[in-house]
C-alpha cells in the first residue's frame, strides 16, 4: 500500500447552491388516473320477511376532496338464488338498492348480479346462507369506563366467525329549560312536538367488529367488547341505549373483513400498518382486470338492545356542557308581548321578566338540536 507520511486533503470549494433538492409530489399515472372502482356495501339478509339493502358507490382518488363515496345510480341489481329465483333490488335514487320484504330459502346459495349504466357487468361468487345464532346477552361493565359486551354461542358449533355492528342512542337535554317555542313569529308554550329541551341522537358504529371462536374447542363468544365509553362521556349522562347486531360470517368473509379492519386511510406515521391487498368475491365479468371492492355474505341477523340509565352507574363524572349561557333583556312588544321578531338566531326567548321585558339567552343553552339529534323520543328511550 502506497502511503505518504502526511496527507492532508483540503476541499476548497463546493458549490452548494441548490445542493440538495427536497421532496416533490409523487403522482405517477397509476395514482392520478381516475380510479372509479365499484364498491358493493351490504349483505343478503336471509331472515324471514326482511329487506335487503346494498349501497353501491365508486372509489375516489387519493387527492379528491370528496369525503364520501360517489353513489352509483340506476344500476340493474338482483339477487339470484341457486334455484334460479331472481330478486331485483331498486335504487332509492341515492345509490341505496333495496329489495321488498323477502323470505329467502336458507338452504339455497345466492349470488348478486349488477349491470351498471356504463354497461359493465359484475357478479359475485355463490355464497351459502349462514344462520346467525341468537345473541345470548348484551351487557355492560364499569370498573371506571363503561364497556358494552356481547356474548353468544352456537350450539351446533358451526358459526365460528362473527361480525358485529351497532346503533347507539342517547338523550342529551338542553342546559337550561325554556318553555317557549317560536311559531310564525309568535311565542307559544312548547309541547312535545316542538320542544327543544330534550334531544335524542342516534349514531352507527364506524369500526369493524370481528371476533372468532375458531381456536376454541366450542363455538362460544364470551364477553366480546363492542365499545368502550370513557368515564364522563356525555352520552351516558341521562340515558343511553345500544342495539347490537350479530352477523355470522364464512371464513373467507371473516378474512376479508379483517383486512378491511386493518386498512386505513391514515398514513404517514412510523406505526402505519403495511399495505393491504383486498381480494373479494365480487368480480367484474365484463372486464376481469377491474377490481371490485366488497365481499358478499348472506346471513340472518340477530340483535339485542339494552338500556343504561345514569342512575345505574357508579362514580360517573358528569360533564357540564359549559356553554357560556349569557342572557340579555329586550323590550317586549307593547301591543302583544308574544310577538317575537328578534332576528339574531344566536339568541332565544328564555322567560318574561315582566310583560314588557323579555329575557333572552344564548340559543345553544336552550335548544338541544343545535348539538344534534332529534326532539322526538324514540320508543325505546325512557320517557
Amino acid at each position, binding site marked *: 500500500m502506497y502511503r505518504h507520511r*502526511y496527507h492532508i486533503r483540503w*476541499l*476548497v470549494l463546493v458549490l452548494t447552491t441548490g445542493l440538495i*433538492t427536497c*421532496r*416533490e409530489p409523487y403522482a405517477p399515472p397509476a395514482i392520478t388516473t381516475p*380510479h372509479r372502482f365499484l*364498491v358493493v356495501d351490504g349483505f343478503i339478509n336471509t331472515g324471514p320477511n326482511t329487506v335487503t339493502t346494498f349501497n353501491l358507490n365508486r372509489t375516489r382518488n387519493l387527492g379528491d376532496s370528496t369525503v364520501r363515496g360517489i353513489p352509483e345510480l340506476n344500476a340493474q341489481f338482483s339477487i339470484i338464488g341457486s334455484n334460479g329465483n331472481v330478486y331485483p333490488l331498486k335504487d332509492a335514487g341515492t345509490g341505496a338498492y333495496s329489495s321488498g320484504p323477502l323470505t329467502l330459502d336458507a338452504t339455497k346459495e345466492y349470488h348478486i348480479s349488477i349491470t351498471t349504466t356504463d354497461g359493465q357487468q359484475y357478479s359475485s361468487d355463490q355464497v351459502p346462507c349462514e344462520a346467525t345464532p341468537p345473541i345470548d346477552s348484551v351487557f355492560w361493565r364499569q370498573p371506571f369506563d363503561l364497556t358494552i359486551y356481547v356474548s353468544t354461542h352456537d350450539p351446533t358449533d358451526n358459526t365460528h366467525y362473527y361480525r358485529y355492528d351497532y346503533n347507539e342512542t342517547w338523550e342529551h337535554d338542553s342546559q337550561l329549560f325554556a318553555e317557549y317555542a317560536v311559531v310564525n313569529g309568535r311565542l307559544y308554550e312548547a309541547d312535545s312536538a316542538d320542544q327543544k329541551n330534550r334531544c335524542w341522537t342516534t349514531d352507527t358504529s364506524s369500526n369493524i367488529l370481528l371476533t372468532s371462536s*375458531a381456536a376454541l374447542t366450542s363455538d362460544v363468544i364470551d364477553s366480546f367488547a363492542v365499545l368502550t365509553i370513557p368515564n364522563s362521556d356525555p352520552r351516558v349522562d341521562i340515558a343511553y341505549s345500544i342495539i347490537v347486531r350479530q352477523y355470522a360470517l364464512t371464513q373467507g368473509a371473516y378474512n376479508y373483513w379483517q383486512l378491511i379492519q386493518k386498512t386505513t386511510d391514515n*398514513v404517514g406515521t412510523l406505526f402505519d400498518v403495511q399495505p393491504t391487498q383486498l381480494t373479494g368475491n365480487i368480480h367484474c365479468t365484463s372486464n376481469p382486470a377491474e377490481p371490485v371492492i366488497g365481499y358478499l355474505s348472506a346471513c340472518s341477523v340477530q340483535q339485542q338492545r339494552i338500556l343504561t340509565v345514569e342512575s345505574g352507574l357508579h362514580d360517573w363524572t358528569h360533564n357540564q356542557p359549559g356553554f357560556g349561557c349569557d342572557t340579555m333583556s329586550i323590550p317586549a312588544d307593547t301591543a302583544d308581548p308574544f310577538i317575537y321578531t328578534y332576528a339574531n338566531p344566536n339568541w332565544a326567548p328564555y322567560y318574561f321578566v315582566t310583560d314588557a321585558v323579555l329575557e333572552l339567552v344564548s340559543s345553544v343553552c336552550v335548544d338541544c338540536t343545535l348539538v344534534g339529534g332529534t326532539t322526538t323520543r324514540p320508543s325505546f328511550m325512557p320517557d
Partner: protein
Amino acid sequence: MHRLTARLLLYALTLLFFLQVRGQEQKRVTGNFEGYSFARLAARLEAETGYRFYYDPSDVDSMSIDMTLNKATVRQILDELFQNTDLHYSIDSAGRVFITRHVTIVTSLPPRFGGKLPPAAQADNSKLILADDQQQAEKNRLRQLLAENRIYEIGIRTARSGQGKATVAGYIKDDKSGEPIVGASVFADSTSIAVTTDQFGYYSLTLSKGRHIIRLSDAGMKDTRRQIILYSDGQLNVEMHEAVTTLKAVIVSAEKTSNTKSVQMGVNRLNIKTIRQVPVVFGEADVLKVVLTLPGVTSVGEASNGINVRGGSTDQNLILFDGATVYNPTHLFGFFSAFNPDVVKGIELYKSAIPEKYGGRISSVLDVSMPDGNTKKWTGVAGIGPLTSQLAVEGPLRKDKTTLVAGLRTTYSDWILNILPASSAYNNSTANFYDGNMRITHTIDANNTLYLMGYYSFDQFSLDNDTTYKYSNASANIKWKHLFNNRHNALFTAGIDEYQYNISDTHDSAGAFKLGFKIDQAYFRAEFTYAPDNKNQISYGLSTIHYKLYPGTYSPAGKESLVADSAVPAEQGFESALYLGDQFAVSNKLSVSGGLRYSIFNYLGPHDVYNYAPGLPRELSTIADTSVYGSGKFIKTWSAPEIRASARYSLSETGSVKLSYNTLEQYIHMISNTISVSPTDIWKLSDSHIRPQHGKQISLGYYQNFAANTIETSVEVYYKWINNYLDYKSGASLLLNPHLETDVLETKGKAYGAEFLIRKLTGKLNGWISYTWSRTFLRQDDPLAGEKINNGDWYPASFDKPNNFNFIGNYRFSHRYSISANVVYSTGRPITLPLAVFDLDGSPGLYYSQRNQYRIPDYFRTDLSVIIDGNHRIKQATHNFWTFGVYNLTGRKNPYSVYFIQESGTIKGYQLSIFGTPIPFITYTIKF
C-alpha cells in the same frame, strides 16, 4: 505526543549517524560475485572499500552468495544479505563492520545526548535506511536485485536433506509499510501449482527438497523471485515492492494471478487503491459505493441500508469488518459506508461459491479487512472534506512486534443542511455521524500473532419531520493466529457486536416517545487450515454465536409525555456450526473444492410462546394457549447441513469455466418497514413459528482474459431457490409487535440472472463495465397462511431490479492529467401503491395495488471528475493535485424515498430525492 518526541529524536540521531559514515558509503562495489562464500566476499569488500570486517566465521559459513552488483554500497549489500536472517551488522565511524548474531552493536553515541540513546534508536539503527530521494529508487532496485540473486537456505542441512519433500512458508509483505499482502500468488518454477497468501499474507508451499526458484506476483506490486535451497521445513518471508505505474507498455508475466486461475468463483477482490480510484460524491472514497458497481450487486435506492446481491435481500448478506458483524453498514441515510476508507485494506465479496467457513446468511459474504499497520514507521492521513473529516494513524508501537492502526472520522453535514434554502424540506433536518476504529497487531513470536480490534459507528438524523433516528454499531474482537507448523495453522477469534437504533418523536408533547431496538451478539470461531501438500488445502473449524435481541422498547420522552412504557420481551439463541472443506487440485486444468457445514440454531428461553390452533392462519384470534419457557430452556432447535462445492476447468492459459453449487441457512431475519419516510428495520430470530431461511444456488461462469491478461472478461449465470423468506401480511403491524408471527408470511423465492463484466485495470484507459440482468420473485400460495399474495402468483420481490448497468472509467492522458467517469443505471424498485379511497360499512379505507405491482422511477446518474497533478515526479517534497468534478451531471432527481402522508384531508404522495441537481466540486489535495 511523547511518542512523537521520541520519533523526532530518532530522526535527528539518524541524520547525525548518516553524515558520519557518508564518506565511506560513497565507495561502491561493482562485479559478479557468483558462488562466493561470505569470507571471500568480505575480503573483496575490504580490498575495494577500505572497510574492515569483524565476524565469527561459524555465523556465516552456511551462506552462499550468488549476486551481481552494480555500484552497490557495503550497507546495501549487507542489508540484502542479512535480510530475513538473524544476522546484524554495525559500521562505526572508523569503517569497522561488526557482524553479530541476534544482537546489534551500537557503535556510536552522539555526545549531545549525554551518551544515552533512546531505546527505539538502539533497536533501529542497524536497519536505518537513509538515502535522499534520488538514491532511494536506485537503492530499492538494487536491493531487489540482490534479494533475487541471493540463494536462501531453508531449513536445516542434514545428511538426508536431498530426499523427499519439505514445506516452505512465510509472510509476504509490502517493503514500504510492512503490511501483509493478501492474495499474492506464490509458485515454484519446478511445479505448476500456485498458492496464494491468506488474509494475513501467509503462504505455505510444499516442494521437493533441493533448489527452486519461487516466483511471487500480485496486482500492483513488482513481480519478484527468490532462489532457495530447501533442506527441511522452514520460513521464507518476502518483501515486495510497489510497482510504479508506467504509461508505456505493460510488462506482463504469464504467471500473473488472474481471475481465470483461481478456483473461487463469484468472488470479487478489491484493494483500497482500486476503491480510491472510483469517483464518488465529493471525492471521498467509499467501500460500499464501489461494491455496488460490481456485477450482481444492487441497492434498492440511492440511500438504502445495504446491498442486494444476486437478487437477495439486504439482510441476506453477512458483512464482516475485520471479523465483526456489521448490521448497518451505512452512514447518513446510506450516502456513506460505515467503513472509514483510511483504515480499510481491501474487500472480498463472495456471491456464489461461499467458503464453508462462512455461514449464517444466504446471499453473500462481504469481508472488509483492516490493515495490520505499518511495521516500519509512523504514517498518518488527515483529510478535510466538504462533509467529513478524518484522521488515521498507523505505525509500530514496538518495532517489529506491535503495530497500531487507528482511525477517526466525523461529519459536519449539519452545517450543510443548515445553509439550505428555507423552502427546502431539509431546513429543519439534521444529520451527523462519526466512526472510530482501532486495531493492534502483536507478534508474540514467529508462530503466534495476536490481533485486537475495536469499532464504533454512530449516526443521528432527522429528515423532513420531527422524528429523530439514531443508530450505532459497536464491535470488538481478539484474534490469535497460531502456526502449528508450515502446513497447519489456526485462527481463533472471540468477540462481541452490538447494533442498536433509537427513534424519538417529540413533536406532540403528550405523545412524545422513544422507540429502541438492539441486537447483542457474542461469538467464538476456531478456523484451521491444513495443507498436507500443494494439491490439497483443507479447512475445518467450528463457530458459535450467541444472539440476544431486544425487539422493541417504547417509552415516554419528556415530562409531558403520556406514553406508557412498554417492551417486547427479549429473545435469545445460539447459532453454531462445524465445517470441513478441501480445495483439491486434480490436475493443472481441473481443480475442485468441496465443503460441508453443519449449522444448528437453538432458540432459547426465557420466552412465552403462543401456540396457534392447528390448521388455521396465525392470528391473535387463533391463539390456543401459551407455553412459558424458563431462562436457558431450549424452545426450538433447527439444524441443517450446508453444501459448498465448486470446480474450475482451464480451457487454455487465458480461459476457464467454473461451476458452483451451494446451500445456506439463515437464522436471523430482517423485516423492513418501508412505508415511512425512513425505513425502520426489525431483526427477528427464527423461533417455534418462523423457520430458518434456506438458500440454494447453482452458478456457472466463463472467464476469458485478453491482451496478455490485461483485459478480464467474465459471464456468470445463476439460479437461486429461496425458502421461507419473510414478507409481511396485508395490514401487518411490524413495530413493537410481540407476536410478529401473526403479521409475517413465509414465501418461496426464486432468483436468476446473468452478470457480464469487462475489466481493465492497467494502462492509460482502465476501469470496468458491468451489466447485470437479475430477477427475484416470491410466491405465497399457502391458503393456511391466511392470505395469498397476488392470488398466489409469483410476484416481484421489493428489491427486484432487472437491469443494472455500471461503467467506471479512468483515462490518463499523461501522468499529470486524468479523467474519471462513472455511469450508473438501474431499474426502479417495485412498490405497492395506494390507488383509491373506498367507503365500506361507514369507514374509509385505502385500496392498494397488487403487491409490488408498480415501480419507482429508474435510477440514473453520471459523475465526472478531472484530476490534475501539480507535478509528476515520483519523489518530491510535497505532492499536490486538483480534482474538478460534478456528481450527478445530468441532475436527475433519483428518488431516495417514496411515501404517502395525509394532508388536509387528502392523501398525498411524495418522492424525496437527495442530490437531485448536478453538484460541482473542486478539491485541492496536498500530501507530504
